């Protein structure tokens, strides 16, 4: 059976089964959720390990250097008159993203064992959300891509709206509405662009779309639309403020999925659709993304410094770190692209770990303000050590995947000839300093120094099942930190085609710009002629 289908169906079927289970039987509900997450994780691992050697089932631009191989492709016609089909398929990048999601939902299901109210409904929403995420990463048909995308947003609304919390810093209703409105708004913006692509090409098939050369003028109009639609999810500055607020009111596992996976949906869409289908426009616009991402990196970091609420700190830090992903994409170098995708993975795992740990003590303390905490190392040494590890990983300590990926981004940005990424690279290096400032402050004020006596009775994670999510996530960070080859070799086949096409477009653009005026006017016509119009 197709592994992608197993991964997709596993949470989907579990969602349906949960509807039938009596809600009072919390143990059964949790067991079903855990079983489906474990099955998805196991399959995702097999998929990730085997994707390099799996037979190629479909290739875009076959026979050229830009050939893009898809594996495990399956398609079922759905509405033939419109050319809609249910089509799944994966390359290295999707495999990596699926693995990321699987790890996080596995950890998230276990972390959510502390949830006591409406357990059944909670897991239904959680698993429906993950079904949507898996769907986005594996769909090869734009219609279903969009369908799954929306499927991921709706449960998010319920999860934060029902199981979330209002704190001094953030109002729950406001945060929920904002998050859903921005996500939907971005999605609609992207949808407009996707429809434009459809009307031009007459197909939703992503493999086919990749092979169609969209006219340059059209690319120039629709690239920004689709890009902003997806990038508001990354979240790119200045469309980011839904994200920290959403974190701050979401329950732990939802924060984990939100920062760990939802943001990556945006970056994945940018890479696969905006940059993949419209390389010429990408070559023109990407340098400006290099400028915007500076705001993410530096400004996001500075705002993180100004906050006391740990979730807001990590929330803004996420937007800061996703700036590195944007920088990597903007650099148009293999190192930058690889670093960006690698960082999507690494950052996802790292933030999930951090949010899981914040959730662990927030459940007991009901405060996340750094000024209220302190000295918790005394009562929860295990959680403390894990938290310090998460912070160190985030601050770019060697030995963790984040270091390698961020450095690759910086190398890529520096390697690129363009000053639009060379100068941001300097700020990105300074970003490492800023990250250090707020994370070390968080470590010190939560775990070190004196502990207020009211925290005397807090409980550490002691049982194996409580420790599992943290240990698994740390192990993943360390494994890929020491052995980045495992990730880089896998994702390379998904990145290279995009890279080569944008590079070609850029080089062609440079040549066109260098031509004398009359020839430059003639050049687009030639391009049109080549496409046979």
């Amino acid at each position, binding site marked *: 059976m197709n592994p992608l289908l197993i991964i997709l169906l596993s949470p989907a079927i579990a969602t349906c089964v949960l509807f039938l289970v009596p809600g009072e039987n919390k143990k059964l509900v949790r067991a079903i959720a855990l079983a489906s997450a474990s099955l998805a994780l196991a399959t995702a691992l097999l998929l990730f390990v085997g994707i390099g050697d799996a037979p190629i089932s479909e290739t875009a631009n076959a026979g050229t250097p830009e050939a893009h191989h898809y594996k495990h492709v399956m398609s079922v016609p759905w509405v033939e008159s419109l050319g809609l089909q249910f089509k799944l398929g994966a390359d290295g990048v999707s495999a990596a993203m699926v693995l990321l999601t699987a790890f996080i939902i596995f950890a998230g299901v276990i972390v959510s064992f502390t949830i006591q109210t409406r357990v059944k409904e909670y897991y239904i929403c959680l698993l429906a959300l993950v079904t949507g995420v898996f769907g986005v990463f594996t769909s090869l048909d734009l219609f279903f891509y969009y369908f799954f995308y929306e499927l991921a947003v709706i449960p998010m609304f319920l999860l934060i709206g029902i199981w979330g919390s209002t704190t001094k810093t953030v109002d729950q209703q406001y945060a929920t509405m904002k998050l859903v409105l921005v996500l939907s708004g971005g999605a609609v913006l992207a949808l407009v662009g996707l429809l434009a692509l459809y009307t031009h090409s007459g197909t939703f098939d992503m493999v086919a779309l990749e092979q169609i050369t969209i006219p340059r003028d059209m690319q120039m109009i629709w690239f920004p639309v689709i890009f902003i639609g997806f990038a508001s999810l990354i979240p790119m500055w200045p469309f980011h*403020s839904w994200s920290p607020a959403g974190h701050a009111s979401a329950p732990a596992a939802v924060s984990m999925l939100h920062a760990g996976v939802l943001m990556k949906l945006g970056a994945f869409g940018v890479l696969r659709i905006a940059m993949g289908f419209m390389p010429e426009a990408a070559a023109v616009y990407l340098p400006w993304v290099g400028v915007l991402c500076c705001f993410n990196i530096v400004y996001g970091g500075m*705002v993180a410094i100004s906050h006391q609420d740990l979730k807001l700190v990590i929330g803004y830090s996420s937007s800061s770190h996703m700036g590195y992903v944007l920088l990597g994409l903007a650099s148009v170098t293999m190192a930058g692209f690889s670093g960006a995708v690698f960082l999507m993975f690494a950052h996802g795992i790292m933030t999930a770990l951090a949010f899981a740990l914040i959730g662990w003590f927030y459940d007991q303390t009901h405060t996340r303000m750094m000024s209220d905490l302190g*000295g918790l190392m005394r009562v929860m040494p295990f959680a403390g050590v894990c938290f310090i590890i998460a912070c160190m990983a985030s601050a770019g*300590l060697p030995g963790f995947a984040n270091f390698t990926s961020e450095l690759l981004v910086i190398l890529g940005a520096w390697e690129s000839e363009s000053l639009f990424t060379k100068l941001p690279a300097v700020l990105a290096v300074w970003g490492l300093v800023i990250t250090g400032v707020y994370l070390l402050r968080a470590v010190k004020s939560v775990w070190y*120094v004196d502990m207020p006596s009211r925290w005397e009775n807090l409980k550490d994670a002691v049982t194996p099942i409580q420790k599992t999510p943290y240990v698994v996530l740390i192990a993943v960070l360390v494994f890929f930190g020491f052995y980045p080859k495992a990730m*880089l070799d896998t994702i390379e086949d998904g990145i290279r085609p995009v890279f080569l096409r944008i590079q070609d477009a850029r080089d062609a653009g440079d040549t066109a710009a260098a031509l004398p005026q009359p020839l430059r006017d003639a050049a687009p016509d030639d391009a049109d002629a080549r496409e046979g119009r």
Partner: protein
Amino acid sequence: MSLGNLDLGNLDLGFLTVLAADAGGLVTSGFTSWAAWVILFTPLLVAFLVTAVPAIRKNNYLAAALSIGSVGLGLVLTLVVYFFPMLSEGGNVYEHIVSWVAIGDSALITFGTRMDALAVTMTLVVTGVGFAIFVFALGYMKGDESMGRFYGKFALFVFSMLGIVMSPNFFQTFIFWELVGVSSYLLIGYYWKKHSAGEAAKKAFMTNRVGDFGFLLGILMVWAAVGDATGAYGQGLYSAFDFTVIEKAIAGAGGLSELFWNNIGFAAIAAALIFCGAMGKSAQFPLHVWLPDAMEGPTPVSALMHAATMVAAGIYLVIRCNFIFAYAEWAPTLICWIGGITAFIAASMAITQNDIKKVLAYSTLSQLGYMTMALGAGAYTAAMFHLTTHAFFKALLFLCAGSVIHGCHHEQDMLKMGGIKKYMPSTHKTWVIGTLALCGIFPLAGFWSKDEILGAASSNTSIGMSATILWGVGTLVAFMTAFYMGRAWFMTFRGKYRGEHEPHESPKVMTIPLWILAIFSIFIGFVGVPGEGNLIEHFLHSWHVGGPAQFHMSVALISTIVAILGLVLAFKIYGKGTGKDPLPEKLGGLWTLWANLWYIDRFYLWLVRVVQQGIAKLCWWFERWVVIQGLFNATARGTRIVGEQVRQAHTGRLGSYVTSFVLGAVIVMILVLVQVKVGGGS
């Protein structure tokens, strides 16, 4: 881009033979090539076991034994496999390199070990001094319930440090550079319940991060330039991070500046940026502020990391890539001056300290300033020599201080000590040896190495007048060094005991390491006696740039005289050991300036508290009022207002519907008419 006269044909990006051609053979296979991996990774394995396996962590002595064993193994292996063969056969280079980060078929970043004369010397310092200190810590940390945790972190440090030492490329150096920073962070914050320890750990990490900011940019500049010139990045098997590739590219192009867009100062900037890294780790002005605070860590940590090895990493780095600095325009002059300034201000601060560890910390800063001065003057062997001797006697002094602190029931204030000579004879004797070695009294270790540095500084003709000034500063610092060391000696050991609980001599497990280090402090200087028998110069000859070190009789004489003067002056003022310090009145304003650390720390505190927080607040203000209120909420409000306005139309009254219908119809008709007219016109 101009490549100067770089001959691309000659660039061999495979296994590199430049050094080997100079210095004997290049060994890339067999036990000798990968024994370094054993030396490097055993401490990591131990650190992991001790931290992750509760049974080992909770068994303090098992954890200690494993850690001591891993360092001891490193020492023995280095001696047997590398040092002795090198001594007898000449300088082989042993290397073992694997591809680590690769994109497609091209290795971007490699990982490996390279053992050459320089690396072996440094490894011996790290494992040798480290071994003595690890043993000492058995006694010092006795009774600390989390001793296992301590040894785990300590082993992690040894791993990180050895990683820097054996690194064959910049990227790997940077990796271990950061790891050293983290192990330092963890060990300074070892007593995490103390507020000051947490703050000090954070300060150390952040100051180093600022240095690393420059360091990484410098690496990137050199990498891109060399990669451009050699086509090494993205394509070649071996990356343009590799020291040998860089050296060869620079040599081929005829200077670093030739690799950049010709001669607009990028070479000097790149070199200065790389030096920023050294400035952070080796605590040079203006990034020196973290080192004194780092004394919050346990004393063995201060001895090994913040005196002997870790802080020497910056010096080591510059020696390792001296080919970058050699022709880097104004960079060496800058380095010289930074060294001189650090040496002087640190010595001035040391004079005002009453905490015995702080005196030694500022003294370390000052000595590192000497080494930096030597680096700027191009006297790399002299710097390495002083690094080695300093590692021994400064570690000794710190351990003596540790022994004193241990004996005085964790009292560090010298005003509350006094007369300890009587209670702790072994500690006293070794302290005196260490002090004399540090002051540069003939024939102890410091005499030989300090003389080489001062000699090099005075004869550094390339910087003109500055050479004389710097020599003067160096000599003045020698005087101040003797003075504050004498001050610490007499205040602590002479006179009557002023504390409450009677001190006691430390156990054998602590005094034996003291004596071992003391013996080295006496004799290690002889490896660098100028002339034919100069062992260290012979051993490091491939790293020697310029002619062999000269013995400067006048320099040696002057510096010895001022050192003795300093000790005598200290004896006159503090010799009675009364526990009173008349210096504040005598020095007046100068004392205030020195005691307040030249107000540098306060300035930084202001930067962090006011400037950085101000910018952060400003960003949050912008976020709150412009992004959230302006962009998001205003959009929401706008939508609502539009909705309310549109709702007005749905009045439910037939009359208004008919009116708007007619109005609409009229507008449509006008539009159609206009369009027809326009269309007809064209």
